[in-house]
């Protein structure tokens, strides 16, 4: 009797009790997932590599080591003595510095692409789904039309017509990356729209755009984040493919795809490290993103496991 009373007093007297949000629950579930945490650590390591790399590299990515030129297969092999930790490429440039540079560009492309898709796609899909009817029809048919255009063809045309530049690459990737996201966001919005809390907000007189931003988007975010983490690697693959075709970023800039392309060209000359290093970072990053994406899905949607 007395115990209950004192507990009640404690509760009433304490300032406020901190609640466990669904986000906090999801975070706890995510960190219990070993594969996802390993993926996250790999991604953090790759990110650190891209940021810190330029400061610790003994060679600049543009300088040519004239001593190894002409004898790359022998003098350009990875070694601590020459300072070429990853070896050199066919032109005698330090591969460590080049890989750091490629990592920066590839991650940038992936993250910018995913960001565009998250911001544009989610808003577009949420608006189409929430307003419904004719607005929904028109907006989604636009998406259908854009989807039916062969994107690779458009991307290549863009790069050929306007010249190869990082900006054009972002424009091209930004044009297509949000389409799938818009569809996913719209579908989720349609199911959310029937919930009573949306109706409660409408009955109270909350403005439509406030409802979208306050009630719909936060509830979409779980699905959107999962899809975005899976989108980053596919953007990286895109860019690599374009670069592999020789149309991506322009020298002296480079990316994983361009480096892999260069390495593959030299494969028969006994300089396999040129292919191996960029490929290694490419592969572990993709695996990292996939594991993190899987972990996020399990953490955010415990029902759909």
């Amino acid at each position: 009797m007395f115990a209950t009373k004192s507990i009640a007093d404690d509760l009433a007297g304490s300032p406020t009790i901190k609640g466990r949000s669904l986000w906090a629950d999801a975070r706890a579930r995510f960190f219990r997932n070993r594969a996802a945490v390993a993926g996250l650590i790999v991604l953090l390591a790759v990110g650190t590599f891209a940021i810190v790399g330029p400061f610790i590299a003994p060679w600049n990515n543009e300088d040519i080591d004239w001593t190894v030129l002409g004898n790359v297969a022998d003098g350009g092999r990875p070694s601590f003595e020459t300072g070429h930790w990853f070896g050199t490429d066919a032109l005698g440039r330090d591969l460590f510095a080049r890989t750091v540079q490629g990592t920066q560009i590839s991650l940038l492309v992936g993250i910018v692409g995913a960001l565009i898709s998250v911001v544009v796609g989610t808003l577009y899909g949420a608006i189409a789904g929430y307003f419904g009817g004719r607005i929904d029809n028109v907006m989604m048919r636009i998406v259908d039309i854009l989807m039916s255009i062969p994107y690779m063809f458009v991307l290549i045309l863009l790069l050929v017509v306007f010249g190869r530049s990082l900006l054009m690459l972002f424009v091209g990737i930004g044009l297509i990356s949000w389409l799938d996201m818009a569809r996913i966001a719209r579908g989720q919005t349609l199911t959310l729209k029937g919930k009573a809390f949306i109706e409660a907000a409408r009955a109270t007189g909350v403005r439509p755009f406030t409802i979208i931003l306050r009630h719909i988007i936060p509830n979409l975010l779980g699905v959107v984040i999962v899809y975005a983490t899976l989108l980053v690697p596919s953007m990286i693959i895109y860019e690599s493919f374009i670069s592999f075709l020789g149309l991506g970023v322009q020298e002296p800039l480079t990316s994983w795809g361009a480096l892999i392309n260069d390495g593959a060209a030299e494969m028969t000359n006994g300089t396999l490290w040129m292919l191996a290093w960029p490929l290694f970072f490419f592969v572990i990053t993709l695996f990292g993103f996939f594991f993190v994406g899987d972990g996020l899905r399990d953490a955010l949607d415990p029902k759909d496991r």
Partner: protein
Amino acid sequence: MSAPLLEVRDLSVTFKVAQQGAWPWSAPRLLQAVKDASLVLEPGQTLGLVGESGSGKSSLARAIVGTVPASNGQVLWRGEDVVGMGAARHRTHGRHVQMVFQDPLDALNPRMTVGQIVAEPLRTHFPDLSKAEIRTRVGAMMERVGLLPALVNRYPHEFSGGQCQRIGIARALITEPELVVCDEPVSALDVSVQAQVVNLLQDLQRDMGLALLFIAHDLSVVRHISHRIAVMYLGRIVEAADASDLIAKPRHPYTKALIASVPIPSPKAERSRHRPVLKGELPSPIAPPSGCVFRTRCPIAQPSCAEQIPAVERIGADHLVACPFADLAVT
């Protein structure tokens, strides 16, 4: 006589139903959810709305609140038509009419804390209030509905069904509305919790002078809380009267069947009583029967029932019934 708080005149709600497999341009079929419903609600009164599933109770409530468009008729708020209001004017009107929902958890945004949920109507209608002021008002309202104010930072999934319904009630009452539309507020709750929530609503009604539109399919709950009861069948209000009058002297055959279906908590009395059981199902509201919609299941149906829609007649002081043969005995 001044205008009543809420008056509904000949309100109809029609939904378009896309036909399966039809061409995109072919005309959709019309579902008549509410047809020519009229009712009056005075300040501080409770109007109970009963009827089986699919009878249009919720559609009528939503048309009054304004989340579903009315296809015909008027909703008058203190004499002012709500249906024809512009969107902006309608939003400010939302302050006076609030809603409590059936599924308590579904009605609360899972990503918002309870404090944010309860504060939302305040932030919408009084954007100038300071954060501290909002916090004190939310705290006071939480206490008023029987929740600890210390729980404002918790999330809806951390509460039980009854507590969630209290949060929903707190949200509805924070702007001090004059009418609260309760759409089956207790149907999803345990019986013991039902009683608590109903009593809470009654207390709040007494203290704040609220008018309630209380929807339920459970006649015993409605009888407990209502001053007046309206019975709906297939979108029409078939009978409306003061609560005690309607329970004691039901006139419409559907009301009689409804009252007879309420179980008596005594096996002996239950076994010995005569109860007319309705046969069949509710007809489709897409193709309702001609004339009186109840005639397909009515125990006293006459041939003329198929021909014309029965007019609503006033019998007694405040007893309205839409059946010209109400005096015929049920056999």
